[in-house]
């Protein structure tokens, strides 16, 4: 009976820690490095913020393609998902790229890759923060 009570009492705490971990992961996605800041992992937070930020700034400066939700094919949609991975930095990229993309040169093509890589890297970092918050080895 006592074991049964303990088993029944456990889920709310698990659920709470799982919610906190999810919030930390979501924060890490919205603002690169914020998830690690909440976990007090300062070095990783700085590295995530700077690398994602530099990739986004370089990508837009090289006139890479910042995809929008109105993509016409699967590659545009995948590019949009990758770009969205940068969280709020996606809107920074859109506001910085006033002249629009120019992928007729190698620089623009590289810029597109830089932006997509920034998004995927930020998703990886957010997942890392989520796993660390769940108590997995990080």
């Amino acid at each position, binding site marked *: 009976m006592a074991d049964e009570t303990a088993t029944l009492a456990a889920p709310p705490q698990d659920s709470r820690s799982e919610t906190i971990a999810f919030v930390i992961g979501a924060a890490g996605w919205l603002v690169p490095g914020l998830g690690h800041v909440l976990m007090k992992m300062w*070095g*990783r937070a700085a*590295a*995530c913020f700077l*690398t*994602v930020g*530099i*990739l986004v700034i*370089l990508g*837009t*400066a*090289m*006139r890479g393609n910042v995809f929008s939700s109105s993509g016409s094919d699967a590659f545009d949609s995948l590019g949009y998902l990758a770009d969205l991975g940068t969280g709020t930095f996606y809107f920074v990229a859109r506001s*910085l*790229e*006033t*002249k629009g993309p120019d992928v007729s040169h*190698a*620089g623009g093509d*590289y810029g597109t*890759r*830089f932006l997509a*890589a920034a998004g995927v*890297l930020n998703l*990886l*970092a957010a997942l*890392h923060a989520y796993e660390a918050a769940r108590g997995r080895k990080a």
Partner: protein
Amino acid sequence: MNFGIGFKLSHLQSMMLFALLISIAFGFLSRRRPIDRVKYIVWSLFLFLLIGVGIGWAMYPFSR
């Protein structure tokens, strides 16, 4: 470049910059001790460049 910086990157410079940034991020995310991070960053950067240049040379015969 777009907002008045006024410099252009070559293919090699772009690849090196990309490799460096991604290596730093991977090093910080996957290793805890500073010395391990430095080793991982250097090794990852070396492999990025080696494989990038290797694939470039492998594609050379088909470029014309």
